């Protein structure tokens, strides 16, 4: 078979190259086959091959010096066997600082770098392993939380519907009560107006008041023929229109005042005409001040109390309506919040997380606010829920809380919360890198993404 031989040759030749050409990765080996001359990778210049890695920069792209610090923007490849290979700027080659764990960058700086790749690799693999475990567990937890979230979402939707129904009922009640209330109020107003009218008239006249008299005395005053009954005729003779004292009442008007009959006895009088006289709205006894109600009087009192009761009832229902309305609004608002593509962040709703940092006590209530309480007990808002603020690819990796308490001579406080994957949900750190600009780390399983597994695997290479 040809294949094994071919592979062996390739491996052998690359071994030779890697001894010769420092600072390049496997994939770049093809550019550095030992020939008489070397073509800068950007094709700009052809130089003798012995000028590759001769500590002088010939190529504008730095490709002739992958293993030295000669080129300004060059890069050096740390092979880092046993750990992750990576590039460092070539300015870090032989600068007496160990950058590559295989010590390959410090081959000529008299700095004794240890090869730490094995240890690093082991440690990283262990770390990655535990990270992967945490990620797996986190993802499982996340799934649960998503499911919980779905239930919560349904609950909330149901709650919203219930509330809506209650609100509708309350609306109907409100309509009725408002009508009733208006009617009552109108009645009271009417009675009050009469009272005022009477007072005004009284001021202009010294005539005696009807209201101070009993229904019996008025009855007998009107009963001209003393037959113990009042006829329409008697009524027309003594009563007059309240607006126009000269006008004689018509027969019909008199009958109406008597409650529809042509005669009334005393008790019927008290139920019918007496009320009209007493209220003094339409008629009065000729030459006398019209009747008038005062607050102390039972009718007004009753009317006022009825109106108050109606108003109280209305208020009660209005309050109830307001409460339910607000609840619905809050709920709607909360349901309108972006809880992630799978509503995985919904479970954080109505939760708060605390952390003590030196003398300060921090509290993060996701989708609500961040606060800081000092040892003296003074609470300061570090921002109210603003929006998701991660990069376009990972929108849900950061939250922004804005418009907290204003700073002295400065802007308002705000907090950027970075979400990290972990098996627990907890506030991990809060810092203030710039005045009144806070950053927090918040760990939660729902920040775990399957993509992190790829990254972990990648770094394991």
């Amino acid at each position: 078979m040809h294949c094994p031989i071919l592979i062996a040759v390739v491996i052998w030749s690359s071994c030779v190259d890697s001894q010769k050409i420092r600072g390049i990765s496997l994939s770049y080996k093809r550019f550095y086959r030992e020939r008489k001359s070397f073509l800068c990778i950007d094709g700009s210049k052809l130089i003798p091959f012995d000028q590759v890695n001769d500590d002088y920069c010939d190529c504008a792209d730095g490709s002739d010096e992958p293993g030295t610090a000669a080129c300004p923007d060059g890069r050096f490849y740390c092979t880092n066997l046993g750990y992750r290979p990576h590039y460092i700027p070539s300015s870090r080659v032989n600068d007496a600082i160990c950058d590559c764990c295989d010590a390959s960058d410090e081959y000529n700086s008299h700095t004794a770098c240890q090869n730490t790749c094995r240890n690093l690799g082991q440690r990283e693999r262990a770390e990655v392993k535990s990270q992967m475990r945490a990620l797996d567990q986190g993802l499982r937890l996340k799934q649960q939380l998503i499911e919980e979230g779905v239930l919560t979402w349904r609950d909330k939707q149901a709650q919203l519907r219930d509330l809506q129904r209650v609100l509708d009922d309350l609306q109907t009640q409100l309509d009725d009560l408002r009508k009733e209330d208006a009617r009552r109020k109108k009645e009271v107003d009417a009675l009050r107006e009469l009272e005022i009218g009477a007072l005004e008239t009284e001021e202009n006249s010294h005539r005696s008041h009807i209201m101070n008299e009993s229904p019996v005395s008025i009855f007998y005053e009107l009963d001209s023929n003393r037959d113990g009954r009042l006829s329409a005729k008697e009524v027309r003779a003594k009563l007059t229109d309240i607006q126009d004292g000269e006008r004689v009442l018509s027969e019909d008007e008199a009958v109406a005042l008597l409650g529809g009959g042509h005669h009334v006895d005393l008790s019927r009088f008290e139920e019918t005409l007496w009320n009209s006289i007493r209220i003094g709205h339409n008629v009065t006894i000729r030459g006398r001040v019209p009747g008038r109600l005062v607050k102390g009087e039972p009718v007004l009192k009753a009317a006022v109390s009825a109106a108050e009761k109606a108003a109280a009832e209305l208020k009660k229902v209005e309050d109830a309506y307001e409460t339910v309305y607000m609840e619905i609004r809050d709920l709607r608002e909360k349901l309108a919040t972006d809880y992630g593509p799978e509503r995985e962040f919904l479970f954080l709703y109505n939760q708060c997380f605390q952390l003590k940092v030196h003398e300060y006590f921090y509290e993060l209530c996701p989708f609500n606010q961040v606060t800081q309480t000092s040892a003296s007990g003074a609470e300061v808002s570090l921002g109210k829920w603003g929006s998701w603020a991660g990069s376009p690819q990972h929108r849900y990796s950061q939250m922004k809380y804005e418009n907290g308490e204003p700073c002295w001579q400065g802007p308002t406080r705000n907090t950027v919360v970075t979400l990290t994957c972990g098996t627990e949900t907890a506030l991990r750190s809060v810092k203030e890198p710039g005045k009144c600009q806070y950053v927090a780390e918040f760990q939660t399983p729902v920040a775990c993404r399957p993509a992190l597994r790829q990254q972990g695997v990648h770094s394991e290479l």
Partner: protein
Amino acid sequence: MAAFIVRMGPVLMLWLAVCVSGSWAVDRGNFKTCDQSTFCKRQRALKPGQSPYRALLETLELTNTKLTLQLINDNNKVRLLLELYRLQGNMTRVKINELKPLKPRFEVPDVLINDPPTEPLSLLSQDENGMVLSLGADSQRLIVSAKPFRLDIMEGREVLLSLNSRGLLAFEHLRIRKDTSLYQIKTKVNSMWENIKWVFSSLADPEGAEKKEETDAASEQTEGEEATKEDEKVEDGMWEETFKSHTDSKPNGPTSISLDFSLPGVEHVYGIPEHADTLKLKTTDGGEPYRLYNLDVFQYELFNPMALYGAIPVMLSHSPQRTMGLFWLNAAETWVDISSNTAGKTVFGQMLDYVQGSSETPQTDVRWISESGIIDVFIMLGPTPTDVFAQYASLTGTQAFPPLAALAYHQCRWNYNDQEDVAAVDQGFDQHDIPYDFIWLDIEHADGKRYFTWDPHKFPQPKEMLQGLEDKRRKMVAIVDPHIKVDNSYKIHSEIRSRGFYIKNKDGGDYEGWCWPGNSGYPDFTNPEMRAWWASMFAYDQYEGSRENLYTWNDMNEPSVFNGPEVTMHKDAVHGNWEHRDLHNIYGLYVQMATAEGLIQRSGGVERPFVLTRAFFAGSQRYGAVWTGDNAAEWDHLKITIPMCLSLGLVGVSFCGADVGGFFKSPSPELLVRWYQTGAYQPFFRAHAHLDTPRREPWLFGPENTALIREAVRQRYALLPYWYQLFYHAHRTGQPVMRALWVEYPQDTATFSMDDQFLLGRDLLVHPVTEEGARGVTAYLPGNGEVWFDVHTFQKHNGGQNLYIPVTMSSIPVFQRGGSIIPRKVRVRRSSSCMEHDPYTLYVALSPKRFAQGELYIDDGHTFSYEKQKEFIYRRLAFANNTLSSRNLAPGSQFTTLSWIEKIVILGASKPSKVTLKMPDGKESQLEFDFDASMSVLTLRKPGVNAGVDWTVVLQ
């Protein structure tokens, strides 16, 4: 660090609220005008005219080293003693003190590096009107006129400078307060005492006769005083003065001094920093004088003569014929008036004068007024700018030679919050591949602003943190201010108190004032014992958590006293025998002096210190760097950095910088980038920001701005060999690093007022972009017949022209002078230490005559070995006759370097056929080369020779 703000006690907050309310500008009302400073008002009320002073020629005494002569004020009969010295190096010193002061007047110590060596004066002629003395060199003569007293320094027939020509010499002699009953008793007791003393001394002392004379003179003086008592009216403010709520008790009464100087032929004067003003000083007629009084000014205003944090009482005068300097050695509050007979004239008017040939000579008149002390003036006669720098350096010393790393980039902020923050910023620089050498910690790092301590929560492991930086070959600066928290459990405080090292208040108790930690004491740094103790506090076993890579920053050392008059110390506070009034302006110098000494001592005298100070005085250049204090993120503040640092450079302080980005407020990304580009070409390169501003590390403004800032910082690092060499020069000779153009082109009047561009050394001209939205700048390239090369494109431009340069956001217009050779290290790394052994690239810019020269200085970069063991390399690089060579300039020195010459770029070259490298041992080799015909740039590939050896390259 700021003047005042936040995180202080509630009392301070309240006071701040009053103080800070309203606009962003300085509250001028917090600071005195000349009218509000009673001595300035009294002195300024005195108008030019006939001087009351008369020289008593019969009192002349001339010795080998000096001339003394008495002066008498004919109004009050008080006598002064004039001392005249001819100093080596073309300087004249004039000292005037009271002949018999009631008690000694303050003479500023510790500024002069030694007793300036004198040269003999000789009397050429004398009559009853005066005398003529020879000043030795160049037919210079000093003419002393007797009545009125006046001095003129002449060279040939030309008057260089006159003293008291306007009759403004005024000396408020010490006196006993007359409006108290104590005075009557004292005068009686005094005369009795004099008599008794005379009796005893004449018996015991063989020189009694002489003493008798003195006594006579004194009593004569007293009589004189008596006689003219009525002439001296007691004015308000002579014995007590109130400004705002502060009363100055003035136990010594009026003590101010004043003297005028006339400078014929001079239209340009410079210096007397620190002011946020143009390079060329303005006339002060009808306005406020320039004030020198170290003050913590909150949000200072630009383009006015108000005092700022530091004071250097040195003025330079310049004309195409001559450059001179005046050094007024006085540390009390000082005001300087400048007037000019041409200042009011329009260009047309001046031209008319010229055409008509009729005009009077231009002349600048200067008047100095100080609150106390004596008149002690050094007249530096030049005649060239270089001579004046050397003369001033011979008096007060030169710029401290900083560790190389201090010339690199510094990252500062009030405050990096904790160790994690420091680590993250450090990491950020590596991630974005931006070099830096120092990260700084402001006041919040200390435990309750107790300097020399660390906040136990934020910085629990300072040594580990410093080790972390050391691992990257980087360093840290932590602030140590001179106000000490009054707290008995704080070691520094209790030691200073128990040793009696605090400044005292007028009643004898420890002076206390408000500053960052709350109630604070102020150590008396004028006391050498105090300074020695302070220095010992920097020992590694004293300053807990410190390591070799921790350096120091002295802020607030004006001193700043939040609740003091003008935010500083009461003038009647007491330093031993002297009032704070006498020495206010030198306090800050002593703080930096003691701190620098501490850093030297902790290393056993091996390592060079690095200390930044905000307050300064003449001589401060010997102790480290200064910065221009709490500026703001505004374009005009960016522009003013140039004249402010140029002015400091003219008077010895080369290591100057401004907060990159501006301290107060938040810069736009454009302003920040432009500031980095400007700061990268100024001596002290540090970004700094106020606590209340958003973070502004270089990578926070998007990748484009990050790249622009990275490029600016990299240009700085590549040029570090040149910067280092310039500082070596400044240290050796006193020549400024950042130079006004007129310094190198003293005949070119077009350069005299120029302060939007500057030179670094002689060879680089920088015209930074300091306009918002600029599309281009117009740079002036000086030197008729010279050429300049754009350092980025290598394009050649002729000198003696205004050159319009279109700019983009990446442009930093910098030009290399044809005729110069500049070494760079183009392999820019994480920190300057990492670049130590890197090879050099030489940029040879040919003059039109195909000539160039430069230097190369190399040492270990951080110790005194260059000085003590002569361990350095100092070489002359010269190109002539198509041959470039490196020759040793310091044969006595020895140092080996691993650095070599990797590339030689010759600008303005023609194409050779062959390039040969010749070594002293006769070995020859051919060098490969590359010639760019479009720009005439010849690049020699890899000479590979060690940077410390002789070599020659021949172009054929």
